[in-house]
């Protein structure tokens, strides 16, 4: 488990950032009248670097035909659809897979993988897409301009664009038409001090227990123990994004 390199070389990164910003300011001067360097500093948005939140999903336990976690996520965040699957928001989805060489079939749930090096954050022009110090990747819907570049960049198709007017929003997750959104790891719960996500709770209640959520930086947490005791993998590990969501028995 490579949790220890969670925030690699922050000083060097800051330096590069400042240099680029300075060079940028010089270049900008002729063309843009209004500019301020984005206040995209993740440290300023609460959360603590003492944690890194993550999930372990056991593909063997994810049960055929079950949609408990998906339903729980939808109701927790007020994701009401319009029966238009191509444009309705989906923060979490079940996928059934067959291995090409062995023919082995299993099922898992996909959501934002809360990458340590999130491409969505790198490409976002305004800094609306950001990573908190506790590893949760979010969209600030107040500065998202709806360019959808992050959706192009995400290797997991984890994000949805709000394609229409919203009704009956949930206080847990204010949303915005014309903005992009995705799994928040139930950040509203975490910020209240809870450590159980809606999907995990629902999965547990059905008795399947396929989702374990917790703090990857706490060696005693259930998830850290589980990761230590069994083999797990990241999806598209080749991209080296060091995802916060891991899978076992895949």
């Amino acid at each position: 488990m490579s949790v220890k390199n969670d925030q690699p070389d922050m000083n060097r990164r800051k330096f590069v950032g400042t240099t680029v910003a300075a060079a940028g300011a010089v270049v900008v001067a002729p063309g843009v009248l209004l500019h301020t360097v984005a206040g995209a500093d993740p440290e300023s948005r609460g959360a603590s670097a003492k944690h890194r939140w993550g999930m372990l999903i056991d593909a063997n336990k994810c049960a055929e035909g079950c949609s408990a976690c998906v339903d729980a996520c939808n109701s927790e965040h007020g994701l009401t659809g319009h029966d238009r699957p191509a444009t309705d928001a989906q923060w979490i989805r079940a996928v059934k897979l067959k291995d090409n060489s062995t023919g082995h079939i299993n099922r898992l749930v996909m959501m934002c993988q809360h990458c340590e090096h999130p491409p969505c954050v790198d490409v976002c022009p305004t800094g609306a897409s950001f990573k908190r110090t506790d590893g949760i990747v979010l969209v600030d819907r107040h500065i998202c301009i709806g360019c959808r570049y992050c959706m192009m960049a995400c290797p997991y198709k984890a994000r949805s664009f709000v394609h229409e007017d919203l009704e009956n929003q949930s206080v847990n997750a204010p949303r915005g038409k014309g903005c992009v959104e995705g799994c928040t790891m139930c950040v509203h719960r975490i910020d209240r001090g809870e450590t159980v996500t809606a999907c995990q709770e629902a999965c547990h209640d059905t008795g399947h227990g396929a989702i374990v959520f917790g703090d990857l930086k706490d060696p005693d947490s259930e998830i850290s123990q589980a990761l230590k005791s069994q083999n797990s993998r990241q999806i598209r590990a080749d991209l080296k994004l060091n995802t916060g969501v891991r899978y076992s028995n895949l």
Partner: protein
Amino acid sequence: MSKMYYRELYCGTPVRYWAGMALLGTIVAIALGAAFYMEHNGHWVTGMTNQVVWGLPHVFAIFLIVAASGALNVASIGSVFGGPMYKPLGRFSSLLAIGLLAGGLVVLLLDLGRPDRLIIAMTHYNFKSIFAWNIILYSGFFAIVGLYLWAMMDRKANRYYRPIGFAAFFWRLALTTGTGSIFGFLVAREAYDAAIMAPMFIIMSFSYGLAFFIITLIAAYMWGDRELGDLRLARLKNLLGVFVGAVLYFALVFNLTNLYVTQHHGVESFILLNGGVYTAMFWIGQVLIGGVIPLFLIYSPAFDKARWAIAAASMMVLIGGFFQIYVIVIGGQAFPMSVFPGKEVLESSFYDGTVGAYAPSLPEMLLGIGGIAIAMTMVAVGARMFKVFPESLEDPGESA
């Protein structure tokens, strides 16, 4: 070289000018209406989905932005490389570049989920994002090309002409590189994962920009009843031939190198063989209409000085270019992203593993066409306000 006189574009009668403007204005108004309709209802009324997130407006916008930088070519040749045949066309070349870029950016802006947040886009920068850099490159382009135009028109500013010309030349190469890099950064999407993307965009810009330039030049001189020499057109035509050939060559290299990368076999055969509409667009749209036929029209001695052939070739280059960008933007998204390598997706509520469906909607189309009309309106207004067009573009030999 004989002395050039530049004059505002009056088109003989006021009716002729204003009728043209009214037509353009109507198209722009319809486009704005279409944009409002899409914003008001939300993007679900378009063909775009959570799978194909960039649709027809992006195709138009990228096409215009790429063409904008290429349209500046003629001015660059005139000042950077000092070609006497091209120099008198420099002013128009700059004006067209500004117009095309503005048209493309308006389309891009109006397709955002939140176009009302333009001010946020201008004030919040994430300097790691190539998109943010592009906002800077585009703003700078307006400023530099504006100065360039001024240096060409104002005798007092003439001494800045060459340095600004060089600056503009490099700036626009950066601009096209930046636009191409938008795709280069999408590592997870197989269709875009190639370093050749940025240089390919540069050569595409040369070709589309010049085609736009030739068509609008012929149109403006007809509209304004002015003389346009065959020799000059022939020069432009030959240059276009070189660019069109280069684009074809690059497209070939791009696809062949992609074939080499085992991991990219899937997306290559998707575009070249079994991608349905995208395969057709590639071979018929991009290669045949945008490459082979124009090359024939340009180089066949049968059409030596035929103006219609030059205009038709330019028009086809534009149509082919449009398809090329369509295949890159939409085809690249429609091809299923490999989220689970080595696995076949049996079921997914989010279209994993399936070819993304996209059918462009009418409002998207109207918005895109509006972008072209905005570009043309800016050129028509600019040419009326400033001395952009030489009074006569007779061939140098004849008038001297």
